[in-house]
Structure formats: C-alpha cells, structure tokens
C-alpha cells in the first residue's frame, strides 16, 4: 500500500462529505468538510481502519479571514490526511465531538476548547486541561488578538478535592514528586486498596510555548522548542528543523542527517535507561535504579563529548548540524556502545527473569491490541501490545532510509512487555549507531539558510523515545511562524493509562504510570504552626470556607 494508494483510498472514503480537497505535498491530502459531517467522516475512517487520529490543530485565521479553522490530522504509514473544518470566529463557535468514534480525541478536543474557545459538543470532559485554575473565562490564548493583560489572574473556587468525599476515598497524587517527572495531578477514587475511578489534571508545566513561538524568530524557536521536554530535547529540534527545511525547500546535507540520527540514537539510549531506573525506583527496586543510571552516565559522557551539553545538546541548526564527529570521537563511541550493549543485554535478562521484579510487572496493566488502537496509544507502550506503529519505519525521514532500523514488538501487552520492548529497541539502536559511525557520509555540515521562510504549511513527524511527535508548522512568509502545533506522545498515552488504572491496586499505580509521572500530593492539608512565632491554625474546612469567601471578594 504505497502512500499514493492510501491517499486515493482516503479520498474515495470521504467523497460523500468532501466540499473540496487539495494535495499540498506528495504525502499530504487536505479535505475541507463542514462541521456537522465530522462525526460521520471520523466514523467511516475508523470503520475502514484508515490510520489513526494523530492530532487536532486549532488555528485563528484572523487577519485574512474572520474565521477559525480546526484541522483533524489522520496518519497512515507515510500518508497524512487532514480534515479541515472552518468555523465562524464571532460568538460561540461549535463543533461536534468525535470522541465516541475515536476515544483518543477526548484530550485533543479538551485542548482545542480551552485554547481557541471552540465549544466541542458532546466531549466527555470539557474541563480545563492545560490552562491554570485562575485563568479568566472567555480569554483564549491562541487567538491572534490575545494580549497578556487580558489574562490577569481571576480567583476561582474549584480546588482539587481530597480526603473522604461521600463514601468515596480520594487519593490525590501529584503535582510534587519524590523522584522526578512533570507534575500533573491525579485523583484516584479508592475502595480500600483497589482503584475505582481516576481523574487527571495537567497544566503545571504548561508554559504557553505554542503562543511564544509566534513571538520569536525561526532561529530562537529552535532553542525554545528544545526545552519542551528535557529528556527528548533532540527530538523536538530535529522535527522542527526538518519541517522548516521542508518549508524553505532547502536540501540538508546527508552528513548532517546522519549525525542527527546518531544523536537521536544516543538520546534514545539515555532516555530508555533513565526510564528503566525510574520505573524500578517506583517499584521499590532501588538497586536497578542505581545501576541503570550509573551506566547511563557513559552515554551522557558521550553526548557531552560530542555536543557540549549533557541534556540540551543544541546540535541541530536550521539547515544542518553544528558539531562534527571526528575520528577519535568515533573511537570513543565504539568503545562506549560496546560496554552499553553488554549492560543492556544484562538488564533485559534482569527485567525478564527476576522473580520479585516480575511480581510487580507481570500481568499488570495488560492492554490488548485493539484497546491500544482504540486509545490511540503510541511508541513502545503501543508496540508492547503488538501495534506496529513506528514513524522511523512508516514514513522514514532524515537518514533512516540510508540507516534503517527494525521494529520491535511484543504481544503480551503488560508492563513486563513494555520493559522488554524498550530494552530490545536499545539493542537495535546500538547496532544502528555503529553502522552510522562506520560509514558516515562525507560532505558539508550545514547549508545557507534564509532568515525569512516562504509562506506555506507542513506536517513533520519524528519517532521520539516515547512515541510519535507531531508538528504542524504554518509560515506566513515572515521571520516567525504564524502557527506551530506541538503534539507530544505522552498526551496520547494518558487515556490508556487512566483506563487501565481502574481495577488495579493503589500500589500498582506508580508502576502503571511509571515513566510518566507523579506520585505525591502536597495540597489539602492545613497547619498549626507551634513555635516561636504566633500560632495560627486552620482546619481543612476552614480554609475551604476562607477560600470561597476570599474568591467572592467578601474577605
């Protein structure tokens, strides 16, 4: 099924709803449909098993047209088909929800609603996902006319609940975390030790990067986007520079592409070893955490030697790379990869044979293949359930055509399979890195790059250690992008984690969320401070009462 036939098949499927369609790029098809045809179109696509919903981009076309536009991007192998829906800008624009057909869309619709003010009719949970609690109603940051002064904090009373609510016992987990990770806020309804319900609230790490990209020029955005996530920083710079190079029709030299793939491989090793250590720490196996992070220092030394920084390498530049791989560095890469490969085989054996560790991973959070498809999960979590989804193979980019990788999948779908898939993936990465270092193509490191990018839109996809990262970049011909949509893989994997949590023990929650996130809450407790100073004390109900009065301005 080549990309061409996939796109034709999609066009045929959507003919009853198509208002007009266009082919902006060889692997992209845009189909404009009306808002109320959306659920039907989504239905036909998911019934015909055509790809998966990768992202929903909301755009405000303010200066040119007084309209909003919602883009539903569907990807199948290398083909990207976008359903484009135009909505009036004034009043309360509405769009029907497609989460009954595609459950993974729930989070995207929640984000579309709060960022652009589009009311998604019928979405399961329209509450805020990213914006803070004290964000004023009716102010939408991704609208063109958004000014920061409009967003002055407004007091709201909806505080996260905790403690005994009715007969349900709510355990709040997050946003502060004993070990690491992005703070999010989880609330698990617990009956004894078994979880009966789960709710989630992100937003603690939301810095407003998509809006900030519109105020910075193309070069500054490179370093802003590198800091979307510290663990897979290289992924974001390579997906961004690859997209902008496509927009500017600039040919990146093969040597630069190979070096990018090499650094991406090293980043995958450091990210998976980090994940192995943190997941083991969640399970209470601190020795594996200590040993995997001790061995990870080898790859961190390598990254520091090659790029100059252990975490934010900044090796990508628009049009190529900054640093070269010299012969003595190639030698140290070989030596380090040799040691790492032997240790990774050892860890693969540990996670699949240690009885005590298997007590905590075997049969926990098992996800079947069609559940993985329905929840739209990506990356190693999906591949551990047998879903063959990997952008490096589906639509090879950069140097992956010259140095291909093989896909690693597993059928069991439980936590143990996720450990095994990640470790086997690392073995494949190690051999790819050796292949790259041995026959690094000769040539330039960078090419000339214009400061202004010609107008146009593009989609750029890359396989991060945690799954597919999706970028939609629209340039208006100026020095900065008019719209830049970032969809990170974790957003897709939340749905599967939350649904899988129900029915498990509370002790399994950290293991279930392992590699993603938080474990301890610090809120909902009041304090009597006894000591040298004045003693002030507030019970929990007093503070809630105080909070409500304060927010209504009476205090």
């Amino acid at each position, binding site marked *: 099924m080549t990309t061409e036939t996939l796109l034709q098949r999609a066009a045929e499927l959507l003919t009853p709803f198509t208002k007009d369609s266009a082919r902006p790029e060889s692997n992209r098809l845009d189909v404009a449909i009306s808002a109320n045809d959306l659920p039907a179109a989504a239905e036909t696509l998911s019934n015909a098993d055509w790809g998966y919903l990768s992202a929903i981009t909301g755009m405000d076309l303010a200066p040119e047209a007084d309209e909003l536009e919602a883009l539903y991007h569907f990807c199948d192998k290398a083909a990207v088909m976008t359903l484009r829906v135009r909505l009036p800008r004034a009043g309360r624009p509405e769009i029907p929800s497609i989460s009954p057909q595609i459950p993974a869309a729930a989070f995207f619709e929640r984000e579309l609603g709060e960022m652009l003010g589009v009311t998604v009719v019928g979405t399961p949970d329209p509450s805020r996902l990213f914006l803070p609690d004290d964000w004023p109603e009716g102010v939408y940051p991704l609208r063109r006319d958004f000014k*920061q002064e409009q967003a002055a904090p407004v007091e709201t009373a909806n505080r996260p609940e905790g403690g005994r609510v009715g007969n349900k016992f709510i355990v709040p987990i997050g946003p502060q975390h004993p070990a690491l990770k992005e703070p999010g806020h989880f609330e698990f309804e617990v009956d004894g030790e078994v979880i009966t319900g789960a709710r989630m609230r992100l937003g603690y790490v939301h810095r407003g990067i998509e809006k900030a990209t519109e105020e910075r020029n193309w070069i500054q955005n490179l*370093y802003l986007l590198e800091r979307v996530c510290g663990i897979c920083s290289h992924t974001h710079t390579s997906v961004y520079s690859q997209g902008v190079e496509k927009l500017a029709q600039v040919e990146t030299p093969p040597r630069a592409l190979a070096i990018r793939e090499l650094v991406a491989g090293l980043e995958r090793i450091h990210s998976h070893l980090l994940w192995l250590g943190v997941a083991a720490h969640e399970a209470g196996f601190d020795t594996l955490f200590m040993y995997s992070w001790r061995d990870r220092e080898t790859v961190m030394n390598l990254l*520091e030697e090659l790029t*100059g920084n252990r975490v934010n390498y900044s090796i990508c530049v628009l049009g190529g790379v900054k640093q070269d791989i010299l012969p003595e560095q190639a030698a140290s890469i070989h030596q380090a990869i040799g040691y790492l490969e032997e240790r990774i085989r*050892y860890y693969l054996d*540990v996670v699949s044979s*240690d009885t005590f560790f298997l007590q905590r991973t075997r049969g926990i959070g098992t996800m079947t293949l069609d559940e993985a498809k329905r929840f739209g999960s990506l990356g190693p979590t999906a591949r551990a359930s047998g879903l063959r989804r990997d952008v490096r193979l589906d639509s090879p980019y950069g140097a992956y055509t010259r140095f291909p990788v093989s896909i690693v999948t597993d059928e069991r779908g439980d936590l143990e399979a996720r450990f095994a898939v990640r470790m086997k993936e690392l073995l494949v990465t190690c051999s790819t890195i050796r292949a790259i270092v041995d026959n690094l193509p000769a040539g330039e490191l960078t090419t000339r790059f214009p400061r202004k990018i010609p107008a146009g839109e593009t989609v750029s996809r890359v396989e991060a250690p945690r799954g597919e990262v999706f970028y939609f970049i629209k340039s208006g011909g100026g020095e900065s992008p008019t719209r830049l949509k970032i969809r990170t893989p974790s957003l897709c994997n939340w749905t599967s984690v939350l649904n899988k949590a129900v029915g498990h023990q509370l002790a399994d929650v950290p293991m279930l969320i392992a590699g993603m996130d938080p474990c301890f809450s610090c809120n909902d407790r009041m304090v009597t401070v006894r000591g040298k100073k004045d003693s002030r004390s507030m019970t929990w109900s007093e503070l809630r009462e105080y909070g409500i009065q304060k927010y209504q301005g009476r205090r």
Partner: protein
Amino acid sequence: MKIGSMLKDLLVSFFSAPVTEKYPFERPETAERFRGKLYFDPAKCTGCNLCSKDCPAHALEIEIIDRAAKRFVARYNVDRCIYCAQCVQSCKFKCIGMSSEDWELASLHKAPFVVNYGKEEDIAALLAKPSQGKTVPEPAG
C-alpha cells in the same frame, strides 16, 4: 525465574571501589566542547549586534561606545543565558566563545550574575550613565 538476578553485580561492586567521583575535593576534567560561561573579546568585535539579536533568552547586549576605536562593552546575564552557543554560531568575527572550564556558577545572591566584558574604562563609562538596555517583556501575573 531467578530469585536474585543481580547478585553477581552486587558482589562485584561490594568488593571493588565505588564508582563515585569525590567532586568538591577532586574536580573532574570536562569535555573541551562543553559550553560553560561566555567570554567576549572586544578587540575583534564590530558592534553588529547579530549575536544579541538571535539570543533566545535576551542574555547578551553589546553597548557600542566608539565603533572605530573598537570600544565595546558586552553586558552578559549569567542567569538568563541558556548556554546554547547560538551567539557563537552567529558571530562572524569569532569574538565570543564559551569556556569549558568555568561552570561552577552557583551563588547565594543574584548580584554576580550580570557580567560586563570590555576594557575597564569603557565599563566604568558605561556604568556611569544609566543603561537603557533592551527591556525584557515582563511576564504577566
């Protein structure tokens, strides 16, 4: 299905010296490409300001006192800088570099984070008159 699958590793490291580097007492040598604190050489500078235009964190400003006599002062904020070396990449005259030795920048207050590079008399002249450097958009809230 082994009970203690990491036993061999534990015993090996029990009888061998720990891998810990005794940091404050012995300083490790860092890679020579490591990006530490910035340094600036006013002699080569031409005041084109390309470096501060592309800085993603507004950490560098070049004050031009006298272009012909090469009297420039670079005001560098150590706390704003994100150590990405885009300024080194943009500068065509190689007058900016990042030292790989100078990375112990912690301090108990913020005063030492504003560093002025240039000749003494230029810096003195600059500090005398009120600086009207680029204002950073104040974050809301």
